[in-house]
């Protein structure tokens, strides 16, 4: 079949309408969509504000340019068609030096105009926190597939859920124990790579109290998708204050009552070899002089965490038991050993761990 003008003119006339209808439907569907708990454009910290400012600035520049290009494009495509029977050649126009100059110089000016604040933003984000103010320092280590948080000064070692105080400077030292990870809580601000053998710093001041989710952003193996994290921003004072949390965490693990199901769970925990990878302050301490780092998360206050398996499951006895029984069924390739516990033993350990608030 050869090209026939009336035929495709009809097709061309109909198709954009269909396209527009589809796009409109899609946009409508998106607009009426669910809540966006990880919206990078609703930041809760100073670093996120900087990123969002650049987003909006550049979005406006982009929209203006796109409207300009699309305007000329649409006008040309609609107007400059060969009409049937028209065999005359259009003017053979080879170019225009003045126009070339304009559309080289103008974009150059725009590029300079956006580059100057960009460089400013880069150095702003690289500033060190003010040493005269309070700083919460946390060492983050990415591991396949969970996050270890070490509060060196406070002597707290915990996992996956980062607790900080609203309005206080937080300084994160980031590294990795195996492959490259990237710690990203979208509402907090940009991500940073956690690279083995390197330390990268990131600091921020969160201003909104609440719980905000994030996850690893650098492909790190089979369960990369399930390497979640969460930041819990405490108010500076009151029942739920950061200081309160710190004091709780500094306590040793809760002692189960004699003869209770929890005590049975602790027995299984100690006998089945969980202590090879996990420590519990006061129960399964590391050898003196050993590094505080462990290959599995520190479980001293695991019952107090909101989620388990790196923000994958709700923290409750059932989920804990499911995870202990067969970690790989929840996270493909999970490095935690499947100890082949009976349902009863798994349940007992889960009950014990959940009691460690």
């Amino acid at each position, binding site marked *: 079949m050869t*090209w026939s003008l009336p035929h495709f003119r009809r097709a061309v006339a109909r198709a954009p309408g269909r396209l527009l209808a589809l796009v409109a439907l899609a946009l409508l569907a*998106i607009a009426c969509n669910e809540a966006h708990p990880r919206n990078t454009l609703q930041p809760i910290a100073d670093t996120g504000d900087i990123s969002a400012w650049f987003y909006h600035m550049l979005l406006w520049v982009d929209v203006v340019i796109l409207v300009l290009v699309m305007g000329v494009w649409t006008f040309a*495509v609609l107007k400059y068609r060969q009409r049937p029977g028209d065999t005359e*050649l*259009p003017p053979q126009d080879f170019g225009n030096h003045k126009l070339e100059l304009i559309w080289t110089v103008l974009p150059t000016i725009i590029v300079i105009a956006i580059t100057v604040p960009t460089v400013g933003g880069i150095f702003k984000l690289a500033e060190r926190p003010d040493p005269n103010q309070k700083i919460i320092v946390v060492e983050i280590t990415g591991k396949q597939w969970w996050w270890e948080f070490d509060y060196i000064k406070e002597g707290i070692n915990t996992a996956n859920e980062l607790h900080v105080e609203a309005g206080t400077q937080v300084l994160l030292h980031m590294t990795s124990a195996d492959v490259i990870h990237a710690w990203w809580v979208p509402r907090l601000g*940009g991500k940073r*790579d956690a690279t083995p053998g390197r330390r990268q710093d990131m600091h921020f001041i969160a201003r909104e109290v609440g719980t905000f989710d994030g996850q690893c952003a650098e*492909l790190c193996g089979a369960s*990369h*998708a399930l390497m979640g994290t969460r930041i819990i921003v405490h108010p500076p004072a009151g029942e739920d204050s950061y200081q309160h949390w710190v004091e709780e965490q500094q306590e040793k693990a809760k002692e189960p009552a004699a003869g209770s199901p929890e005590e049975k769970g602790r027995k299984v925990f100690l006998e089945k070899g969980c202590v090879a990878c996990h420590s519990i302050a006061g129960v399964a301490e590391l050898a003196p002089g050993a590094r505080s780092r462990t290959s599995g998360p520190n479980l001293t206050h695991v019952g107090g965490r909101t989620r388990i398996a790196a923000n994958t499951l709700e923290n409750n006895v059932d989920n804990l038991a499911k995870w202990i029984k067969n970690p790989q069924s929840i996270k493909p390739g999970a490095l935690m050993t499947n100890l082949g516990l009976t349902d009863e033993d798994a349940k007992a350990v889960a009950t014990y761990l959940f009691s460690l608030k």
Partner: protein
Amino acid sequence: MASIADFAGAQPPVYHQERESKYGLSDWLTTVDHKKIGILYGISGLAGLAVGGLEALLFRIQLAQPDQHIFVGDQFNGLVTMHATTMVFMAVMPLIAAISNYFVPLMIGARDVAFPRLNAFSYWTFLFGVLLMHSSLIFAEFPAAGWTGYAPLTTKPYGAGGIDFWWAGLAMLAISSMIAGVNFVVTILNMRAPGMTLMRVPVLAWMILVVQFLLAFSFPPVTVGLILLAFDRTFGSVFYETSMGGDPHLWQHLFWLFGHPEVYVLILPSMGIVSEVLPVFSRKPLFGHHAVIFSGIFIGFVGFGVWGHHMFTSGMGPIADAAFAVTTAIIAVPTGVKIFNWLGTLVHAKMRLTTAMLFAVTFIPQFTIGGLSGVMHASPPLDLQQHDSYFVVAHFHYVLVGGALTGLFAGAYFYLPKITGRLLDETLGKIHFWMFIIGFNLTFFPMHLLGNNGMPRRIFTYPADAGWNTENMIGTIGVVFQVVSVLIFFYNMMVSSKKGAVAGSDPWDANTLEWMIPSPPPVHNFDFTPVVLSERPLWDHKYTPGFEITVPAQREEIHMPSYSWRPIIVSGFVLLVLIGLLSHIWALSVVGGVGIVVGVYFWVSEPV
């Protein structure tokens, strides 16, 4: 008015050595004809497009809804890795190679490339590399470290056996690309028809020339990176092992020093195609012809100085970040120049909206969207949020699918009639066009929102309450549209190449030399070497009095290279070396190494 019928009277040249065009198996295996090699690249590229598309369809099904368990963990990661590796190296690059091989000699009025046997060697090395990498599915499992292969995820403790096939396959593709780069640089610079000054070289051939320089200079760094990786995995060296003093950032720098120019390898030829198709169907010259060429050259140079923008989150420090932010933003200027000149070509045109033209015209806004989101990433404070998120996925698919692949589709509808001698069906073509464009935008436009809403790339599942459900479902529906449209395209090619309307030499009333010879062209391409008087030799022959291409009175005497088994044999020995390294059967590698040396000796001493 002169017409191309004038050339029919030319006497075919005198062969010093007869070379018939045959199409048996051994003819394909031993061919050194740039047109046949172009067809081989084309078929390989289309097969790659099908495989890469299938992989995309599979993982989009997994992502259609939250918490699905169809492809989990490394199955999903393997699909994602192979999708990207296949689309970049085994679909878009060979399709570009197909057009380069088939049309560069025709466009510049040559009878073949500078080194025809080396050209065959490039193809076979490419094909063996592709097969080697895909054989991972049989002998091990798909590599699952992402197409960027970030160490240490690719090193022995973390990367399974599929990674060995990945580096070995990529190494062969790198050898193929570097050699092809040198071959085509020499061809375009030395084998132009008399009168074809550099500024009269068609824009597509110019962009391909820039790309060949990019190939020749950007593949060496990644090849070094791959060799270091091979040593780490095969012999236990520690280039990427931090506990022994190695550094994973070394890989990132080596990879992106290749990886960013590679982006221009993929997009510049499509820009060239658009620069050829727009003027022909607008019936006027390309606006700002020289500006389009020089901006392409400028992009080629600056493209080597921007790789760090892929590493803003890695902690290079504010000074390096600032430097790469500035160089990256600069690239927006020549890119803008090209876009404005294409728009200038459309203004006052008399457009014929054939399928080729529809694709070429649509390239402009789609590529513009991809370019503009690229300007956003150039700003590190913002890129820290967008890096490794779906916003980036949207960005590079607008450039590589909305740009590169759309341009290649324009090229297919424009150039295939020259190869097959028959026009593609326009109705099927328009269905392909609309389904593809709608599907593409359905899939990738919502991904900008996913990125803004915090969805990281390369995750095999996501929770239902993260706010990503709708866009992912729409995305999967869009992929189905795209897959169906490409199937229609395949069907169109198969049917039209046999039953389509006969194209004749010049079906589009085109500008350049390849349209003055029959479709498909004879083995020797041109009965006589045309003398080029302008940047639009064929157009001026038809429409500008005084610029006719004259047929010489004398028959030309030519010598075409003969068939040769040697390129494919040497290429087979290269494969043998790598198989030996993979299987740890060192004897194979030794045999392969000796075979290469002996084979090259017989190659250079072969009478042609």
